């Protein structure tokens, strides 16, 4: 038994034991067992990924312990990378969940929550290792259903059930697309191994159809605009550690699937594939951040940022696909590596932010930012972690969000190598939109952190907030360390990501040639930067400046006084800036309706201020078809006459039609 096989066994075993333990044990013991098993499985996953990436060993398992045949697991570079992503976030989330779910004791079903958490982690891990469509689709469905049941945890809160319905409906629409795609690729036999699909020769029409279905199915899971509507509903209502897992990892399965199918199984395609991925990525990046700016529900704001960041990942991958179809393998590898780098970075900082938001919700009992404030004094460590996450997601150097966005920018800069100018022109537009969305993201996180954590508490609940317990802090600390490490060491991460692509056909083998030198130097383009030296310089300056001030004899007295307020006495939270006001400059419409006196418009009878965001995507693309569907359903209901004779007639008719059709086809 090699080390990799051993770790694989531990991974599968630990999660399975976790499910059983969750159903069996209750109280703190149950929570502890859930967390312990989940942690063991997650660490085994990280270990397995690291071993496979480090040594290049590819363990292949044709799961012998399952009674059903046809399941096959195989770990290659891409799976290894995603195993690490799942493991890092999974480890933090399980530890955090131990403390977080304590508040659910006696209110909601902890057994179901614990069991489903382990099922989710198990199905995620199996999914990235799947070596045939059957295994993949089964794991996909297990993932969707376990996430669904966890979204429903706080089922008695308003909006939860509706959000879960949206989630399950859209995720199954996506599943249908994926099933159709795999049936196309495998010519009807779902147990065909991925190697078999790779070698199958398909007509270009079939390949295009398969790609479109893959983009639809995986795009739904990844939360790409306009398929994202379920995401800002479902992620906020789930328990916060589950939100972190869903935003950090589950939506990344869309990214994994897209990479697996387009780059590995279909081995690239015509330029419009990449162009389409790039296009939807750009739209998602901008729409996600604009909607996030309008939000004052802390967790919904983060959920909209997931749409933005998945958009950035898709920009990288889309550019990579375009380069691949123009025969530029090095740039193709660069784009995909940039997308993958942003995948793990987003998993870490969004996981961290959701866990931080979870601590706030845990302490406050509300997600509404307008009731928060002043939490930096009451929850200092959570505030620090959240600030770190906010800096990372705003792409501020030297943290990890910056490193991967930099790489995406460098990829797009390489776009001038595309020989057709009418195609190349999409690259500068993508650059512009990416730059704009990261600027807006920074504005959004000033709002998110500033309104939530700074200034005076806006409600009694905020005044009485308490710091999170140690297990929740440990979960946040894990991801915070990951954010810093991934940000400082792109010179180590990027070659590793390059090597994870090494086995894939159609991408440059030169992916291995990313420089190991300290500045992140990129083939094809020649930008350079070194976050490590930059961080050193910043720290040095942060030490030297106060020291110099002291040596030069600057005044060191400090007096605490009131906030200046034009002479008014006493400051109340009502005078503070609110989250809504902060984003007022972006708000396209006024939500003020004023009733005037019928005789004179100078007499106001009532003023109503309403702040509601109903995105037009939902209005145009979802609400109207849904209304149509509703009308059709009412019409169809007439068939249900209530008479037994009528139903006997339907049965006979259906039977005759089927028999005739069967005879006809034969």
């Amino acid at each position, binding site marked *: 038994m090699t080390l990799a096989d051993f770790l694989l066994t531990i991974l599968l075993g630990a999660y399975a034991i976790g499910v059983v333990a969750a159903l069996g044990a209750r109280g703190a013991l149950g929570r502890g067992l859930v967390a312990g098993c989940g942690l063991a499985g997650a660490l085994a996953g990280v270990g397995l990924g690291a071993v496979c990436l480090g040594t290049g060993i590819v363990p292949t398992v044709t799961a012998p312990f399952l009674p059903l045949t046809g399941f096959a697991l195989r770990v290659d570079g891409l799976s290894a990378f995603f195993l690490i992503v799942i493991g890092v976030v999974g480890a933090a989330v399980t530890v955090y969940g131990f403390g977080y779910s304590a508040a659910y004791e006696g209110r909601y079903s902890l057994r179901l929550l614990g069991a489903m958490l382990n099922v989710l982690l198990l199905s995620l891990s199996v999914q990235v290792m799947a070596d045939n469509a059957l295994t993949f689709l089964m794991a996909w469905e297990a993932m969707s259903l376990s996430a669904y049941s966890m979204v429903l945890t706080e089922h008695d809160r308003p909006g939860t059930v509706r959000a879960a319905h949206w989630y399950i409906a859209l995720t199954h629409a996506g599943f249908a697309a994926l099933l159709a795609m795999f049936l196309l690729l495998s010519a009807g036999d779902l147990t065909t191994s991925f190697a078999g699909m790779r070698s199958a020769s398909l007509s270009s029409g079939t390949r295009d159809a398969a790609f479109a279905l893959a983009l639809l199915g995986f795009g739904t899971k990844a939360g790409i605009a306009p398929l994202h509507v379920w995401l800002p509903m479902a992620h906020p209502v789930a328990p916060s550690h589950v939100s972190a897992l869903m935003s950090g990892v589950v939506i990344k399965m869309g990214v994994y699937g897209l990479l697996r199918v387009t780059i590995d199984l279909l081995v690239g395609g015509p330029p419009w594939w990449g162009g389409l991925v790039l296009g939807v990525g750009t739209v998602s990046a901008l729409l996600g951040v604009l909607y996030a700016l309008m939000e004052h529900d802390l967790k919904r704001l983060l959920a909209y940022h997931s749409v933005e960041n998945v958009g950035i990942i898709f920009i990288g991958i889309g550019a990579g696909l375009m380069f691949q179809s123009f025969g530029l393998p090095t740039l193709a590898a660069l784009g995909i590596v940039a997308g993958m780098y942003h995948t793990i970075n987003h998993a870490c900082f969004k996981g961290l932010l959701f866990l931080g938001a979870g601590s706030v919700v845990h302490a406050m009992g509300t997600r509404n930012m307008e009731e928060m404030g002043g939490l930096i004094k009451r929850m200092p460590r959570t505030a620090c972690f959240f600030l770190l996450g906010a800096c990372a997601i705003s792409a501020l150097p030297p943290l990890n969000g910056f490193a991967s966005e*930099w790489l995406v920018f460098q990829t797009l800069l390489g776009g001038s190598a595309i020989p057709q100018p009418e195609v190349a022109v999409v690259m500068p537009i993508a650059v512009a939109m990416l730059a*704009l969305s990261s600027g807006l993201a920074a504005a959004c996180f000033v709002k998110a952190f*500033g309104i939530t954590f*700074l200034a005076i508490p806006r409600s009694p609940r905020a005044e009485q907030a308490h710091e999170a317990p140690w297990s929740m802090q440990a979960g946040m600390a894990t991801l915070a360390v990951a954010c810093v490490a991934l940000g400082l060491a792109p010179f180590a991460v990027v070659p590793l990501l390059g090597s994870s692509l090494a086995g894939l056909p159609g991408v440059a083998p030169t992916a291995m040639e990313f420089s190991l030198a300290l*500045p992140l130097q990129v083939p094809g383009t020649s*930008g350079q930067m070194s976050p490590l030296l930059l961080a050193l310089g910043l720290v040095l300056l942060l030490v030297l400046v106060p020291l110099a*001030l002291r040596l030069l004899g600057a005044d060191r007295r400090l007096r605490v006084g009131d906030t200046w307020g034009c002479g008014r006495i006493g400051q109340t939270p009502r005078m503070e800036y609110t989250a809504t006001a*902060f984003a007022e400059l972006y708000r396209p419409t006024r939500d003020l309706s004023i009733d005037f006196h019928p005789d004179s418009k100078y007499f106001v009878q009532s003023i109503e201020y309403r702040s509601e965001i109903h995105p037009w995507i939902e209005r145009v693309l979802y609400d109207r078809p849904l209304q149509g569907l509703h009308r059709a359903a009412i019409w169809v209901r007439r068939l249900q006459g209530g008479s037994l004779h009528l139903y006997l007639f339907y049965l006979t008719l259906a039977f005759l039609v089927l028999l005739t059709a069967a005879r006809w086809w034969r």
Partner: protein
Amino acid sequence: MNVGMIGYVLEVAQATLALLLAPGLVGLVRWLKARLQNRRGAPVWQPYWELAKLFQKEVVVSSNASWLFRVAPFVVFASTVAVTFLVPILAVPLPFDGVGDLLVVVYLLLLGTFFLSLAGLDPGSPFGGMGASREMTVAALAEPTVALAIFALALSAGSTNLGQIVARTMADPAAAVSPGHLLAFGALFIVTLAETGRLPIDNPATHLELTMIHEAMILEYSGRYLALIEWAAALKLLIFFSLLGNLFVPWGVSVVLTPAALAVAVVSLLAKLAVLAGVVAVLETRIAKLRLFRVPELLSVSFVLALLAVTSSFLLR
């Protein structure tokens, strides 16, 4: 002393020179503006006295403020000083060119703005919140424009590192009048006004609550904290002026490390700064401040200019 050492010494000298010149540049703009408005005006070195005075005063901190309020001035100052090591001010190439490229410069400046805005929200004053909201709105449009505008130059230079962009334009002077460069110059000039809080976006001389942006945000600051923020703001002005001067009109920047070349570089830098200060002073005398809700429109114009600059560089390459 070998060549490598000279490079590091030059980096430190360049940053020190920028730090020392920055308040004078602000003073020069103010003085020119005063003369254009028929006022006598404070002497050019007035900002130095102001800084010295602020460093000698005690700090008053709001009781609502947290540690973030006290850390922010140092973050702002450190990130701005770090930028001076990365932009071409006197000579190219310098040893720290590889530490950060144009994106690092843009996002480092954003780091400072980010913390300053948070510090604006920290004391819970409505002015601070107002300023922070406005500052981030301006920055969210301005920072991408800076990145895009310089990106247009990076495309023709084949590198995002600022030193190489300068070297490339010097080697190929025709590039300096290409459409990409001209459009990018227009965009970067508008953004310079926005980023450094100048008319018509913000008025550095106002203390009227309804119109101010930067001043509202730092209203709660005093003493040495205020001094650091003011100094960083002056430094930012100098950084943007030297980006405008050295990226688009690179002549004068020293490419060989000889004393004569460096002397030329210092003189040409001073000349470029003086010309730009004159332009800004004339502009600030001639035009009125835009209404706040019109500011995003102006910034959108510069954003579109930058987008066109990048696109034309892409296609005309």
